[in-house]
């Protein structure tokens, strides 16, 4: 993937997130955070620093549009930081190998575990920062569960569509 393509993806995902997905919810629950697809699909061989900077800028763009300065940026940076170890945890491959995470390159079960872990990590951090002032634990847990589930569904759909091409 060239830099230009990455930037196209970047802009496309930010616009999709802020114009459509941020406004989707069922009584305040189940908002998809699909923009992390960008981080999840980045080649495994990428340096941690590079991925963190991409993630930070991605999160910050979503924040600026959504009036949540720093929230998505903080959560996306943690996700980028933890992605390498998570990827190594679910695949038994040699970590030096460079591949784009996906069903084809990893097999369905490891890929599913990979997005499951990453999405729950991201949603937990984001929503804990968001609900800072309330400490309403059942609501928080339900929010994390529903938001992460709908995000995973979105990611799997995107995977299925892109694989058919």
């Amino acid at each position, binding site marked *: 993937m060239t830099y230009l393509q990455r930037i196209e993806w970047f802009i496309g995902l930010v616009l999709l997130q802020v*114009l459509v997905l941020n406004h989707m919810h069922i009584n305040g629950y189940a908002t998809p955070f699909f923009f992390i697809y960008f981080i999840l699909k980045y080649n495994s061989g990428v*340096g941690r620093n590079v991925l963190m900077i991409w993630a930070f800028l991605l999160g910050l763009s979503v*924040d*600026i549009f959504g009036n949540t300065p*720093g929230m998505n940026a*903080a959560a996306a*940076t943690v996700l980028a930081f933890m992605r390498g170890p998570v990827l190594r945890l679910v695949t038994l491959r040699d970590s030096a190998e460079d591949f784009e995470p996906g069903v084809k390159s990893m097999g369905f079960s490891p890929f599913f575990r990979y997005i499951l872990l990453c999405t729950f990590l991201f949603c937990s951090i984001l929503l804990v920062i*968001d609900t800072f*002032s*309330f400490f309403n634990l059942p609501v928080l847990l339900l929010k994390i569960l529903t938001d992460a589930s709908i995000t995973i569904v979105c990611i799997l759909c995107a995977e299925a569509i892109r694989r058919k091409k």
Partner: protein
Amino acid sequence: MKNLLNFFLKYNYWFLFVLLETISFALLFRFNSYQGSAFFTSANWVSGAMYDVANNVTGYFHLKAINDELVQKNVELELQLESIREALAEATEDSSGIEQIKREALAGYDIFKASVINNSVTHADNYITLDKGEADGIRSEMGVVNGSGVVGIVYLTSPHYSIVIPVLNSKSSISCKIRRSDYFGFLKWDGGSSEFAFVKDMPRHSLFSLGDTIVTSGHSAVFPSGIPVGTVDDIADSHDGLSYLLRVKLFTDFARLNDVRVIAQKGQEEQLELEKQVKTIK
């Protein structure tokens, strides 16, 4: 020394990680403190202009529902106006008196029309972006209402956009009262459904019942008195047991906001100045 350098080089990503997280949290906390800048929000010109375009498209989807509401409201107001006019005509033989009362009711306020270009209801702290800013006369601390009731208070302004703290924000606190009996409390929201908020500090001896209408009290410099807020939906005791906690069903549908009005009270600065002086004496 060499070992130290090697250590830094080997773990350089830790430093970047800490740096990026620090920036994120600095942004988060600076926005939460009152005098933040509007740059890292949807009130900056890039995102503001983009939301303008998006709103031009999505604004049409709600037109029918909004139109229905307006017609309904118009009919109600016309009926009310008619009965009030009759009552007034009976009370005063002088017809110019009616005109004078009409003029006086709106004399103390400037009203600006604005459109909501960005809105959320799912966060713990929601914000609304309007397409009018300082250049149009909007200043922070002005009240925002729509056709059905209270929306919020202007928080930050940039030249052409402004950000409003709606009722659905943990920072929002609006003074309101029960219309029937004038006992007052504070309207707060603590997450959860966007249809309900709570009135705190309602005194033990106050008189009210389920279904009573809550309106703004007019005690603060932000809202004039009597703007509808919602109806009493449930009554409970506050945590310390010294006052009532009322659950209020809000009139405003925050998930479907489009056209709002910003109310500027003339003489607002004077009142704020006076209140500030009192605080500094303490």
